[in-house]
């Protein structure tokens, strides 16, 4: 019962945010440019009529025609969005596949090191990844790789997406931050179990520290870890944008950034002379919805697994 209630609330939240995104992104973007001296200044003119038309047109096309319009490159929005999403999916999958076991192992290690002199290796590195911006770590790694290549490391391209190996570096870079996040969650959850009586009892029975940690303590930490699974995907996604931007891996997050019109308007003007750079509203909506759908799926998965792993939560009203 509780499971169904939580899942339906998650779906309601998802629909609410999707509608909010549609309502906001469909704002008309009429900008009037006025020359001020040598510079050009834009002022925004808002008209309710056009806003209403935008929304009406969007929903009419979506519901009756199953049509989301075209992108800047004159292709159907849904085709382009799915194509880019399928390019990002392996990165996210590999990163989650690696970061969940790595993060939990690191969390357990952090707890073991917390009372020793080697604490800086455990909690220190976790805290480092918590407080250093992701772009810094990524540009340092790329710069280091290029330096190493000049010292004799076999050459490969660091900025690319057309080689067979091009998914490896971005997915490894994408693993670091979710793993550090999960390590912090795990070590805190384990820390809160430390003074419980059942742990004292298990130790008194003479069980080895390894069995106590992995079998007794971790079993009780699963609810807390599972509860944070959607946040881990969220961390991965916000990292994905920076990673794709910095490694030139053309995935969905990068396409979203491009669709917003921030990227390389000058370059596009060279390739498509005379074509106005517009922000591709429908593409923004579709990609954002795909990302939110991924988080919704993780949320449902975490709720279901929590239902089976956490009897206290199951009984709670």
């Amino acid at each position, binding site marked *: 019962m509780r499971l169904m209630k939580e899942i339906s*609330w*998650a779906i*309601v*939240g*998802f629909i*609410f*945010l999707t509608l909010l*995104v549609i309502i*906001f992104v469909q*704002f*008309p*973007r*009429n*900008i009037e440019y006025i020359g001020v*001296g*040598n*510079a050009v200044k834009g*002022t*925004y003119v*808002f008209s309710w009529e056009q806003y209403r038309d935008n929304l009406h047109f969007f929903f009419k096309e979506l519901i009756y025609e199953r049509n989301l319009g075209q992108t800047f490159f004159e292709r159907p929005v849904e085709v382009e969005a799915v194509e880019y999403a399928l390019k990002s999916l392996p990165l996210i999958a590999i990163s989650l596949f690696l970061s969940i076991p790595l993060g939990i192992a690191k969390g357990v290690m952090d707890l073991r090191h917390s009372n020793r002199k080697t604490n800086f290796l455990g909690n220190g590195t976790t*805290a480092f990844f*918590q*407080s250093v*911006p*992701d*772009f*810094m770590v990524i*540009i340092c790694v790329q*710069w280091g790789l*290029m330096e190493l290549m000049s010292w004799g490391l076999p050459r490969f391209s660091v900025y690319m997406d057309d080689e067979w190996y091009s998914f490896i570096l971005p997915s490894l870079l994408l693993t670091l*931050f979710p793993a*550090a*996040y999960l390590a912090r969650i795990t070590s*805190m*959850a384990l*820390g*809160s179990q430390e*003074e419980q009586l059942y742990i004292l009892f298990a130790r008194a029975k003479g069980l080895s520290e390894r069995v106590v940690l992995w079998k007794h303590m971790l079993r009780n930490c699963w609810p*807390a870890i599972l509860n*944070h699974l959607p*946040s881990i995907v*969220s*961390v991965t*996604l*916000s*990292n994905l*944008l*920076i990673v794709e*931007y910095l490694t030139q891996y053309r995935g969905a997050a990068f396409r*979203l*950034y491009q669709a*917003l*019109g*921030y990227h390389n308007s000058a370059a596009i003007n060279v390739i498509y002379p005379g074509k106005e750079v517009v922000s591709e509203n429908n593409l*923004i909506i579709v990609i*954002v919805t795909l*990302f*939110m759908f991924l*988080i*919704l799926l993780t949320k449902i998965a975490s709720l279901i697994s929590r239902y089976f792993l956490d009897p206290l939560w199951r009984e709670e009203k």
Partner: protein
Amino acid sequence: MIHFTESEGYISPPFPLFTEGYPFGSDKDGRDLLSLIVIGTRNTMWTVLLIVLLRYTVAIPLTLIASLGSRNPISWFITKWSDSFSFLPTLFIAIVYLHLPFVHESEERFLWGIFGLALIEIGRLSQFFQEQITALSKKEYVESGIMIGNTKMGLLFRYYWPALRPYLIVNFMQDIGKVMLLLGPLGFLQIFLVEGFIVVSYATTYLNYELINLPELLGYNKWHIITHPFLPLTIGFAISFIILTFYWLGEGLRKYYEERNSSFRRSRSSVWKGMILVRKGEDVT
């Protein structure tokens, strides 16, 4: 602009690190990077402080209103609001918001930006404080306070506030770090709240020192990563330094309060560790 050094003769900007008179080197127009970073840090810190202050001035009254009564519609609304906002990473919400035409093209983009970035996290913050208040309301000393006839205001100031203050201060410090952690990548993606470089005409920029800030410096200098890696790296280190400072300040304050309260609490660290776990959806990147 050129510069004369004894070892290499005349050099053109960007000057490398440790050039005479330019300890951190310079940017491509020959401006001293150390001065830019110092001025930029001042302006950036004001922006960050404004965002966090606005967030707290809205979140605290909201929490107090939401904590009145047991089945409060505002409390329900805040929970659902922050739950549905957890479907997108804060960075994505921020870039979509800052791209909205009435924000992006507005004369008051700075104010709109501060308002929006503060608003994104208000639900989460308010939910966190509400959970603390709910946990406190089950404590015996609060029940005794109700028994001896305290008014609601008396309860708030004498019973809840002293227990909530440490959480508030620790979170305030760490939120400063988190906002910086959001502004850094935004600047790197060339999405700025304030622009100090004003384009006067083609390829000519005028620098307004009152507005220059670290995210913008980073955004403009990131292209030099291959030719002059020290430029983006130094600015990036400055941003990381701010985040690390406030992160450790928060951690240190937490440890201080923990030790001060340890004689009163049975299991001293678990309360604080529980507090962080309660704050679900905590965005770290």
